[in-house]
């Protein structure tokens, strides 16, 4: 099952069969799972914590084993830039924008420094 990905129907088939459907099935399932669940149900506290932790896992993956251009930045640089962003976040009374700008300045700075 291979084909030319740059044109024709194969990229669409691949995208829908191996990307969209395996992902969408969970979103669809969650509608039925959330049926009858009250907004204030105690179980939702745990569900929300698991959701947050899963996102932390995604972040950790991007920090520890990144793809593409980010892999050109050493691990210490990636973790350091994240730390810079967090310091800016707390220093500005929890501004998301300040965190993003500070971390971006740090990672791009490290990129030019090591490059």
């Amino acid at each position, binding site marked *: 099952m291979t084909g030319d990905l740059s044109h024709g129907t194969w990229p669409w088939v691949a995208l829908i*069969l191996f990307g969209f459907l395996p992902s969408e099935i969970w979103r669809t399932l969650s509608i039925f799972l959330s049926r009858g*669940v009250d907004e204030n149900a105690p179980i939702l506290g745990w*569900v*929300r914590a698991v959701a947050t932790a899963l996102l932390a896992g995604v972040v950790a993956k991007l*920090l520890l084993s990144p793809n593409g251009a980010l892999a050109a930045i050493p691990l210490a640089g990636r973790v350091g830039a994240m730390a810079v962003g967090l310091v800016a976040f707390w220093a500005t009374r929890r501004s998301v924008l300040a965190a993003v700008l500070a971390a971006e300045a740090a990672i791009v700075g490290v990129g030019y420094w090591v*490059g």
Partner: protein
Amino acid sequence: MRVAACGPMLIVSASLLGVGGMARAAGFSLESAVASTLLLWAGPAQLLFFSAVAAKTAWPAIALTISLSSVRFVPMCVALLPMMRTKRTNTLTLLLAAHCVAVTVWAESMRRLPAIPRGGRMPFFFGFSVMCFIGTTISTGVGHALVGELPTPLAAGLLFLTPIYFVATLLRAAKKPVDWLALLIGLLIAPVTQALAPEGFDLLALGVVAGTAATLIQRALDTRTAA
């Protein structure tokens, strides 16, 4: 809302520039790269998909990886949908809403919906989602067109938008210790679960372990305050 939601929309759009670039590197056309944003609607899943295709991974393995990374939409949707649903909400609306759930939309909604009267929650959610869809559709295409033109440090900066934005938004949305504890414990145990859990299942293991630990700590804190 227009002013309040612009920042997150711009950040998520900028982070999708990198996805467009990855799609081109994997051999996908501009149209299918843009379609991946509309269909998958999850930056990390798109990055996984295109990097796996570029590495010539077997298609069933790609499907499994994507599916495992998207299990996280179950807790996200189950936490969010009951906040927006009214008695008149039909299944089609819920299907559309569930499709719109991704980290930016989720985190902003979890943060802002409680302050909005129930009848206005769904409109806020879809309004914000549509803004994000428009912004990211454009940026995926631009990223696809621009890849290779950007120097490596700037390209790295684009890919770094996702992790820093995730962390800052989740901390911003945190109300109780459980919220930032789940994040902190998740980050700390990531190297352990990556080493110990079977390939592909590490994220799931991390979510359940860190989420449960954070919930238990919160419960202990609550008991102590009550006593």
